[in-house]
């Protein structure tokens, strides 16, 4: 009887020690769920969800403070991915945060730009180059299409241009076939 108790006690001490060691040694910094959610979000940093950037929104989703359907740039596709990840029901995009638009980039009308640098300060990803009283321009490859530069521009010289389909980004279509009416016998 005593031996059995001793063995069980010893076992629990050893296992407890191992668990305690593992908890310290393999401690995960940060919340891995937030990283997973963040990697699904489109990183436009546009703030349309009501949070200051994609990561704060990811943190809010992880805590259960925000719904998964508040990200218009991520679109339906993004909501599906979030729903799959979190095991929640799919919901259509909530209208109050905006609508899903075709992917666009900002274009500065260089004839109208007065070089005020306000858009440069607004751009969350540093995709606008220029200096005070010099013409500004958008680095198209790095523009996420967040539209945050539109508001501050005092002369309304920035417009959003949808990305055109080109030979390089063209995608093969899902194979479909025209239905043919059967000939009368």
């Amino acid at each position, binding site marked *: 009887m005593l031996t059995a108790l001793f063995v069980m006690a010893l076992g629990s001490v050893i296992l407890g020690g191992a668990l305690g060691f593992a908890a310290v040694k393999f401690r995960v910094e940060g919340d891995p769920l937030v990283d997973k959610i963040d990697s699904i979000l489109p*990183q436009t940093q546009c703030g349309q969800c009501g949070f200051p950037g994609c990561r704060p929104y990811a943190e809010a989703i992880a805590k259960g403070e925000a719904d998964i359907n508040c990200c218009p740039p991520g679109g339906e596709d993004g909501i599906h991915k979030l729903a799959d990840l979190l095991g929640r029901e799919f919901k259509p995009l909530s209208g109050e945060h905006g609508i899903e638009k075709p992917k666009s980039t900002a274009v500065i009308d260089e004839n109208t730009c007065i070089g005020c640098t306000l858009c440069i300060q607004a751009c969350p990803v540093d995709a606008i180059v220029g200096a005070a009283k010099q013409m500004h321009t958008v680095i198209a490859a790095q523009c996420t299409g967040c539209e945050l530069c539109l508001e501050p521009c005092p002369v309304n010289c920035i417009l959003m241009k949808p990305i055109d389909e080109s*030979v390089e980004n*063209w995608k*093969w279509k899902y194979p479909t076939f025209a239905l043919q009416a059967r000939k009368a016998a």
Partner: protein
Amino acid sequence: MTLRQLFHFNGGVKPAYNKEPSNALPIMVAPLPAELAIPLHQSVGGIPRPLVQAGEHVRKGQLIGGPDGYVSSSVHASTSGLVKAIEPRLMPHTSGLSALCVVIEPDGKDEWADLAPIPWRSMKPDEVRDALRDSGVVGLGGAVFPSYLKVNPGKQGHLNTLVINGAECEPFITCDDMQMREHAETIIRGAAILRDLTKAEQVLVGIEDNKPEAIAAMQVAVKATGEPRIEIVPVPTRYPAGGAKQLIRVLTGIEVPHGTRSTDYGVQCFNTGTAFAIYEALELGRPLISRIVTVAGNVETARNYEVRFGTPMKDVIALSKAKPDTNRIVMGGPMMGFAMPADTVPVVKATNCILVGSPTLFPPPPPEMPCIRCGECARACPTDLQPFEMYWFSRARIFGKAQEYHLFDCIECGCCAYVCGSNIPLVDYFRFAKSEIWARENEKAAADGARERYEFRLAREEREKAEKAAKLAAKAAETKAKLAAAASADDEQKKALIAAAVARTEAASATRQEGTPGAD
């Protein structure tokens, strides 16, 4: 001579070859068209930058598009004339989209720019590669990968085997066959250059045994040129024996595994047309401005033509006279070709064949029926994949699973669709899945880049704030020190004044004391 042991690849099909109509007549040089529209993007990789302007006069072989980025090639004017415009024109691409072209109106003189042979034997390997990039040589078998990136001895410093691909397994196409018959010596000399550049121990020229004339001509050329270590090897005719990995397997027995390159095993593969182009580029200094194109299918006289890049396809088809019931144009062969949006699109570096179709020659595909999992496609697959599994997942848009079945090892040869009893266009599904996956990966990379830039911006703002605060604090401290110093200086002065005053009073009292007795 001992017979070389050949190996074989799994799968493959034996379609009707239909090569006879187009290999009866010699290669004819296609006449100058009224206008050439030369696309800038004709190879894998970055889009070359235009180097000429509208209104400029160019000469044949002049550089008109410079490479952009590490993987990119150059583009040259295919005749002399006036640059009419640099504008988007319809591309020889299934999408029916346009891309930037240099439009040249020929002046009829067809005058070469100043050309000089490239002294490649005395140049460093990097310089030879630069020269090859600037002469616009790309793989002419159909993949149009810039050749300069492949002219590389690999990690071990030399190749064991250099494979020259003259298999030309696709039905209807005879451009390599005719070029080997007519220009065998040039091809062998090109292969010898490649052999020396890659330090290859042996060169094996694989030619399918349904081209006896080409094999004979190449064997004669090897003897005539006296080039050592080059062997012509007839390989069994079976589609797709001309796939790079398939031909390497047949000739050397090496099966290049998933995710590795043939150079890791000391093997590299070039097309015969590419060997020809490399000889022209290095020994004659001539950039790649034309290629041999087969015109076959629904035409009066199927034939091979030497066509300048930028020539409208309809001009080339007119030489062979398309039959009246023609309803479509395919670039490439019936197995791997791409439907063209119109017959006005230009001939480019990838155009090995212009296949003219009619409803009787290529009847519309019968309706697709459900997959019955018969496994015929897996038996026919030359890359040992399971097309029916990839089909399920591509069809259901479960792309991750499709990738797990090695979707990207698919060479789109069309064997699976050819044998499919349910008429499923499998390759269409695979192309759809591949382009969706690429688009998603690009999107992901862009999002990751944006996140990095955003985090960097936040860090920078934080740092700037900290720096500003530190600067302010430093300034405040400085002012304080100055004030303190000033204050202490004031104190010193005061003390000195007081001391001076004390001294004065003391001195005064002393004189008074001294003076007092005297005064007494």
